[in-house]
């Protein structure tokens, strides 16, 4: 290894300036504040510019990572963002929410001996710099083809399809069930992790490019997929996400104060209930909050509860720390904010008072047994270890499934056992002619970048179809 390398490895990762835990745990402002120019350039210089960069293999959409980092190092920020855009149209979002530790950064060579290059932070920097100081150039569009495409769902996968196809000269309309666009990015992921103005600015760019957006349109109810074809659409992309909340199916779950994370987060984020009574949507203010589950959704719920003024918030998870599926940054931030982790613990029933409000839950201790189908050690209850946890609010964040609203109303669309749409992972084609699908409604709840990647592949395939047929 050359001397240069060793020197670089020694230099430590530029830390991300953040709001202090004591302060931020009571406000909804973004936690990490972003790199300065100097910090970004210094961090960029830690990249070894490998000949065979393994970080790219770790990125689901194959961003030219050394390429864009090198440009940041040279202070060429405008060029840098263009390099990222070649593969990723939502970098301000991905830089903030990708699980980098198991993707690009997990593969970074520097990470073998020191902390990996902060690829996510740099991606975020390039995108934020462009949004704040860039010329706001919009890419040029190809000649109009006269073909009409309906994109159902405005989450990351739908927005990607819309962006790619409008540039190829097609006429694109996004149909969204909610009154606002962005999918999980607006209703699920909180402001303190992903400011809504960023999502809004991405959507505004699409609109500038000519994408039409029809909110308040529930496909399957307001209009069906087949009716879209009758209305003259040539192709339909289905990116409706995995929005069906799972519950525990244990006694007492319908008590007041037991909410799905979808409901809790939608109230807080989409409806901005944290501003109640200045907005009209209320949200339960728990003093003693238990959040069930340990994924990103659970962390977001727990940290939201803390910000709404809870005295005590705990994550209740039936497995151990190693198995927690959330991004490591979220777990770390949650701990810093004083959220307790009750691990190897599983609720068995909810306890209510005479008004039907939850006042506690009975839990049982778990221990890890043999590995299960997911490869993780299966939690098994320890007989006789039941105990009571007091709480006045429970947020259930134990996963989500496929919402049947659209799929049930669409003939010819094959589904798998879980109700997810069967689509070719290479091109997003479903079993119904002219219909593509991607994102969480195909894979189950996954990640923003995978949903985007699926959208990109489908957009290529739709473009081919519109030119050359199915």
């Amino acid at each position: 290894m050359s001397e240069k390398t060793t020197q670089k490895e020694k230099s430590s990762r530029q830390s991300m300036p953040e709001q202090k835990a004591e302060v931020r745990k009571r406000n909804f402002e973004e936690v990490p504040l972003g790199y300065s120019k100097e910090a970004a350039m210094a961090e960029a210089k830690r990249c070894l510019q490998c000949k065979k960069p393994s970080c790219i293999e770790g990125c689901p959409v194959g961003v030219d990572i050394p390429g864009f980092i090198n440009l940041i190092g040279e202070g060429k920020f405008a060029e840098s963002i263009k390099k990222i855009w070649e593969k990723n149209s939502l970098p301000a979002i991905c830089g903030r929410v990708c699980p980098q530790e198991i993707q690009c950064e997990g593969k970074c060579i520097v990470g073998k001996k020191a902390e990996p290059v902060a690829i996510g932070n740099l991606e975020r920097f390039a995108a934020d710099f462009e949004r704040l100081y860039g010329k706001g150039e919009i890419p040029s569009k190809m000649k109009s083809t006269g073909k009409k495409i309906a994109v159902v769902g405005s989450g990351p996968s739908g927005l990607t399809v819309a962006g790619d196809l409008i540039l190829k000269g097609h006429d694109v309309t996004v149909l969204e069930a909610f009154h606002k666009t962005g999918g999980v990015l607006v209703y699920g992921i909180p402001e303190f992790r992903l400011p809504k103005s960023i999502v809004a600015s991405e959507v505004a760019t699409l609109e500038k490019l000519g994408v039409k957006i029809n909110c308040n349109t529930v496909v399957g109810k307001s209009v069906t997929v087949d009716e879209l074809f009758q209305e003259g659409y040539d192709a339909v992309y289905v990116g409706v996400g995995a929005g069906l909340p799972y519950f525990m199916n244990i006694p007492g779950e319908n008590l007041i104060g037991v909410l799905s994370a979808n409901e809790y987060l939608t109230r807080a984020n989409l409806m901005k209930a944290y501003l109640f009574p200045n907005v009209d949507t209320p949200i339960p203010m728990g003093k003693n909050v238990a959040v069930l589950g340990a994924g990103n959704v659970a962390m977001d719920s727990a940290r939201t509860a803390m910000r709404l003024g809870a005295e005590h918030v705990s994550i209740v998870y039936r497995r151990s720390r190693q198995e927690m599926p959330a991004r490591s940054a979220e777990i770390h931030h949650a701990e810093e904010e004083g959220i307790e982790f009750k691990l190897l613990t599983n609720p068995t029933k909810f306890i209510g008072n005479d008004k039907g409000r939850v006042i506690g839950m009975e839990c049982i201790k778990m221990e890890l047994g043999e590995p299960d189908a997911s490869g993780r050690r299966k939690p098994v209850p320890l007989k006789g270890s039941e105990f009571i946890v007091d709480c006045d609010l429970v947020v259930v964040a134990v996963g989500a499934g496929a919402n049947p609203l659209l799929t049930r109303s669409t003939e010819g669309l094959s589904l798998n056992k879980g109700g997810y749409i069967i689509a070719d992972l290479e091109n997003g084609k479903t079993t119904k002619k002219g219909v593509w699908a991607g994102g969480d409604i195909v894979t189950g709840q996954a990640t923003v970048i995978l949903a985007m990647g699926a959208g990109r592949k489908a957009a290529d395939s739709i473009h081919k179809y519109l030119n050359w047929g199915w």
Partner: protein
Amino acid sequence: MYKIVKREEMAEGTVVLNEIEAPSIAKKAKPGQFVILKANEEGERIPLTMADTDPEKGTITIIYMVVGKSTALFKTLKVGEGYQDVIGPLGQATHLDKVGTVVCVGGGTGVAVLYPITRGLKKMGNHVISIIGARTKSLLILEDKMKEASDEFYVCTDDGSYGHKGFVTEVLKNILDKTKVALAVGIGPVPMMKFVSKITKDYDVKTIVSLNPIMIDGTGMCGGCRVSVGGKTKFACVEGPEFDGHAVDYDELMKRLQAYREEEENCRLKFEASKKAA
């Protein structure tokens, strides 16, 4: 914006009718289905079952009781103004069939929801008996329309100011004693639906009720609308709003409807105060 083209106050101004321009919803909507409305940017999403639709004119009609801040805000909207968002049609349509004699029982603003169903049942060729009720005469709504849609028609008021003095359930019981009824539809306040169902159960008459739990999205993604029916949890927005009246856990529903009572009351008082100040 979804423009209000007609506005009427009923029941001493406690109930308001809005006819709203929403052509694509009007084209698709069927009796029993609902919409979600949001007045403005800060507004709450409020589910309301449609009282009527006019596909040709491209309008839908909603009738709501002014109870909290959101409906108080709705009440301030004039003809020509409108709602920022209207989403629908949502939920399952009523299964309208020819079954013979049906009894339609409505209380309060539930009568608004009952009306299109009653009309639909009549159109299918059923013999329709309707009973509507309110606390007092001036609070009755849609009397003429319900009368027109029915073969036999009864009115009740709690204070006896009009029609039968007493509850709709008493008239219902009399009818069931005399007549062979194939289907009952009960729509109104939860306690009313509970007691209607209790009576029809004694007479073994199939009963449909329309539930109004708290909702957000109306598409099955939040679970806020869950109700227990036959011991199973159902999402009322997608599997309902109509359910088998004999299987619904009304007590749970009544409690769940109180979830935000305190918050709502504070919000309403604040709104009333700001209206006065302005």
